[in-house]
């Protein structure tokens, strides 16, 4: 009876799968990074600035 004692990451295209999974994770992190910090504050500030004054009253 044979057992899989060795998995060749190159032959199984394991690296491609790992790369794709890391891409998806990193892509979400990049989007979060881009829409936070000063950028997010500025967008909120811009929204506040263009809010009609009567809505606050």
């Amino acid at each position: 009876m044979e057992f899989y004692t060795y998995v060749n990451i190159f032959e199984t295209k394991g690296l491609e799968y790992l790369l794709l999974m890391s891409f998806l994770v990193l892509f979400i992190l990049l989007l979060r990074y881009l829409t936070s910090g000063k950028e997010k504050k500025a967008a909120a500030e811009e929204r506040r600035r263009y809010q009609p004054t009567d809505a606050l009253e």
Partner: protein
Amino acid sequence: MTTATATNGFTGELTRFIRFFLQELKPRGKWLTPFNVISIPTILLGLAILYVRFTQGLGSVTNLNQQFPLGLWISFDVITGVAFAGGAYVITFAVYVMRVEKYHPIVRVTVLNGLLAYIFYAGALTLDLGRPWHIINPIIGNSYGYNAVLFLVSWHFLLYMLTMAVEFSPVVAEWARLEKVRKFLSGLTLGAVIFGITLSILHQSGLGALFLMAKPKIHPLWYSEFIPILFFVSSIYAGLAMVVFEGTISHRVFRSLIPKDSHHSYEAIILGLGKGAAVTMFVYYFLQALIFIHEKRWQLITDFWGVWYLIEVLGFVLVPCVMFAYAVRNRNIGVVKVAATLALLGIILNRLNVTMIAFNWYAEHRYYPSWQEYVVTLMVVFTEIWVFRWVVTRMPVFSKT
């Protein structure tokens, strides 16, 4: 009676337009500027070289031969220039299809840039054809193959130039004070934009597909069956980076022509473009990494070509991508501009590598462009800038009249 009145009205309108146009042709502003001093002699010298090229053949002014049929003119003017013009379809998509109004102030100037880039850079294709009069063959159906990538590319170039002319035509009508014509042409814009996006996606990738048949000639680090996808994705961030680069120069040179409210939105536009470029470059970088692993290129990066490839992918894709992301998060316009310049240099490097530097990489005698090829390339760029300047100083490109 009615026909005679209509004819008189049309003649009168035509006469008015011709007078107006002749008036507009007169030069404005100072003549002795650094740009004029450099560009005028270059354009004149370039025209003289082109005269020799068309009377005595390509070999008289270029270093092209049977082994190296693609030189600087094709590599830089056509392949790189068309990638730089990608901003037109990206911005029109954002504004007219996705309705992102933030980018509305730059639509006109971006479309103008795209139109001129196609006219001049794709037009420069005729310079590099041994028998330039054959350029019409794919259009008129004389000995062409329906399955050829070049057939697709040539038809798309023609159709996309016409589409961009339609997209820009309301500005011309506004300038000529033809209100009814402007209204009619404005109605065509959305259709033209959608058609233009379809054409762009296909021919940006089609330019890459042209090199699929050159597998034995291109270094394996640059050859890939996914070249069309790489060309398409890179054209998106090339276009965005070009808009940032061109916008920076226009903002300085044509400051007086830009309305004051646009000055306020300038920062938001540049940061938005930087964000788009960061995301696209990230995707492009991962595509490159995936292809690298999929095609088992590990052993190829140990020599000079490997280092050259890493410089291109790490130095001119990953680095500007990180810079764009950093700049957007910290709202640093200066870093966006530097990243855009690096990204543009990366596109030049990539396109030159595929078409020229890593093409016939094993050849004993390499191709180096002649000085005449450099002068003609500069001539094409300068002439485009001259036309661009003429248009923006006369037509309502930066603002509506």
